[in-house]
């Protein structure tokens, strides 16, 4: 296996959790809710997924546990930010802090435990094709799930009536309410979906990417996912590009560290986050005044009595 191929393979595995989490948050934000708790939901998904997989010995149950844990945290967020119309930014930040704490509690028994990573599929003949074989046909199942998810989210948002309603709610909740749509119910479902995706992304980290649990192992990926949503201008297919771009930066800095170019490793590790800041700044400069974000993003909805 050549160097380039190895790098491409690791980029794909690095990008997958980013993509899944970003797609979930994209749907949440399209419904007009800003949930900054992605990092928290992700790490609880990682801890719960790993714990469940160790206890049951089943990777599938681990994945489901990760999704469920993310959804539970999302439900707490929804109860506060939607049910009680609490400030979404503050609630989301609190959710991240809560998630970091809870994940430590869940994972404390499992530090040091190891299991095999989620198996990569191996198709006879196809997976053995030179160069493209491993990259296109030799990934673990969740990589394909993440790509299908991107297409599915695009199809849902732009081709289905339910997706139209969701976008409408994110555009103007007052108008959607006046038409008789249940704004809070739609947003609640969107937030749950986002939580499930973040949990799945977390479980991917602890079950496939690095098959063990260590506290704080999401290492800011939830924040990068949030940046990808903005980078993608709330468009799911552009989120794929964003996720692979950020995944690429993450992997390349590792390779650069390994080569030892005399740059302190801490500086190299900071690269993905610097890239995040840079991208956000560039986007806000380029799109000044252009309304790309859902118009009602982050504004709480309180119906008339």
């Amino acid at each position: 296996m050549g160097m380039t191929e190895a790098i491409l393979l690791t980029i794909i595995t690095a990008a997958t959790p980013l993509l899944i989490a970003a797609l979930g948050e994209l749907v949440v934000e399209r419904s007009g809710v800003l949930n900054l708790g992605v990092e928290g939901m992700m790490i609880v998904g990682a801890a719960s997924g790993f714990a469940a997989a160790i206890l049951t010995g089943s990777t599938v149950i681990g994945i489901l546990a990760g999704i469920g844990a993310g959804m539970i945290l999302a439900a707490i967020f929804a109860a506060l930010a939607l049910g009680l119309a609490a400030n979404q930014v503050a609630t989301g930040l609190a959710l991240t802090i809560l998630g970091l704490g809870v994940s430590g509690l869940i994972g404390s028994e499992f530090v040091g435990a190891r299991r095999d990573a989620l198996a990569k599929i191996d198709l006879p003949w196809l997976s053995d094709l030179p160069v493209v074989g491993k990259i296109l046909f030799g990934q673990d199942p969740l990589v394909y799930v993440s790509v299908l998810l991107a297409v599915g989210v695009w199809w849902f948002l732009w081709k289905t009536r339910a997706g139209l309603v969701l976008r409408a709610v994110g555009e103007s909740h007052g108008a959607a309410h006046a038409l008789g749509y249940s704004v809070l119910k739609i947003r609640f479902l969107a937030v749950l979906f986002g939580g499930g995706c973040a949990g799945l992304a977390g479980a991917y980290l602890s079950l496939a990417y690095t098959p063990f649990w260590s506290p704080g192992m999401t290492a800011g990926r939830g924040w990068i996912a949030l940046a990808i949503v903005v980078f993608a201008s709330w468009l799911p297919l552009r989120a794929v590009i964003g996720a692979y771009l950020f995944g690429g930066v993450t992997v390349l800095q590792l390779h650069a560290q390994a080569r030892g170019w005399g740059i302190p490793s801490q500086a190299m590790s900071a690269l993905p986050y610097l890239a995040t800041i840079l991208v956000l700044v560039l986007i806000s400069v380029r799109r000044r005044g252009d309304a790309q974000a859902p118009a009602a993003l982050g504004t709480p909805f309180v119906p008339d009595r």
Partner: protein
Amino acid sequence: MAALLEASGIVRRFGALLANDHVDLVVAPAEIHALLGENGAGKSTLVKILYGLLQPSEGTLTWEGRPVTIASPAAARRLGVGMVFQHFSLFEALTVAENVALSLPASTPIATIETEVARLSRAYGLPLEPRREVWRLSVGERQRIEIVRALLQNPKLLILDEPTSVLTPQEADQLFVTLEALKAEGRSILYISHKLDEVRRLCDRATVLRLGKVVATADPRAETAASLARLMVGTEVKEARATAHATGADRLVVKGLSLPASDTHGTALKDVTLSVRAGEIVGIAGIAGNGQDEFFAALSGEVTGDPGTISLDGRPTGALGINARRRLGAAYVPEERLGHAAAPGFTLADNALLSGHATNGFVRRGLIDRGAVTAWFQRVVSAFDVRMSGPNPEARALSGGNLQKFVVGREILREPALLVVAQPTWGVDAAAAATIRQALLDLAARGAAVLVISQDLDELFAIADRLAVISEGRLSEPRPTPSLDREAVGLMMGGIHGVAA
């Protein structure tokens, strides 16, 4: 003939406020019924109850002889009630057809909706392009979406909330033709307005609300505009009247002002030239979004530019900031009362400080002189009869008319050399509107230059000495108002130039 809709004894409370106090309303089939009343009279509350957005605290609704409860807008639509809101409930980022789709059962495919929209818009003279995004459309076109959307439900009763407040006279005429056609098909229309001439022209019957109660049910054609106004307001409304005075030298001069659009939805100003003399009110007519916001921002100093493009009393001010211009004697009242002219969560005294800190001696060595602020605030309140619920309430606690009197009053009492005011009486009750217009006329009579940017042609014809039209960022040559006719101005507002000559 049996009534289509009968509401009897409707009561709706909001806390201690009685928004509807035993209101009775009867709408007959194939009737255009006016619901008249000032802001805060309870029209919106009543209509929201009829459309299922609010539930009445007491009272009954009868539809075609059967008692009904209307639990939601969907239930209202199932009965056959359609609604066109004053503030459009449209989704700017979505297309016309998508907007319409959202009010239809989910089973209807978008393609069907597109053809249906095209068909209805032809049938009722409401031209629309189904695939355009709403933010690209004019206000009149947006209203058409609302009407088409309501018509797709095949309603027996169509409720229109102040439909002409945003239209040019021609667009309004076109709307009236559509409404007459709907009536001829046997549909009823509940027409909410405070424009009395329209109501007298269009409506068969009128129910007049004041302070939550029905004060009269009348045949508007048998009444005069003055008698209807008296019913609405409860007292005689005085027409604003100018006192004769001479006009002097140019005070505000704008020369070749061009300005790029502030954002993708804005309008660029193109070579705007205008002068306003001492003692003169110049009106700028135009449909919203034709550059008024940009022009106001350039005049007030919210956007600065080339020094020579704007001057006040001979001094170039184009590059100066807001405070510097205020110190030279300029004063400004922006269109949006809450959020632009006044900070909603600040008290009135603090709001007076915000606009007057540079000019009114409220600040000494960096410290606020509370006594001076309070004295000034009380002068404004008493001079302009601002009614408020406490000694110094937050701006958002005031009614629209009272807050508008306050934000206009705090500028006029400074005796500015120049006052630029946008939409001085937008959504303001008739009595407050009369007070504000009279104050503008009096200010001009004392030698100030007054520039009024407004969409309300009645207002401009009533107070402006000269009138110009802004359309797509270009300003027409101002002409003496008496030499203009409304039709021509209306055409220019719609973007047809050179007709007024």
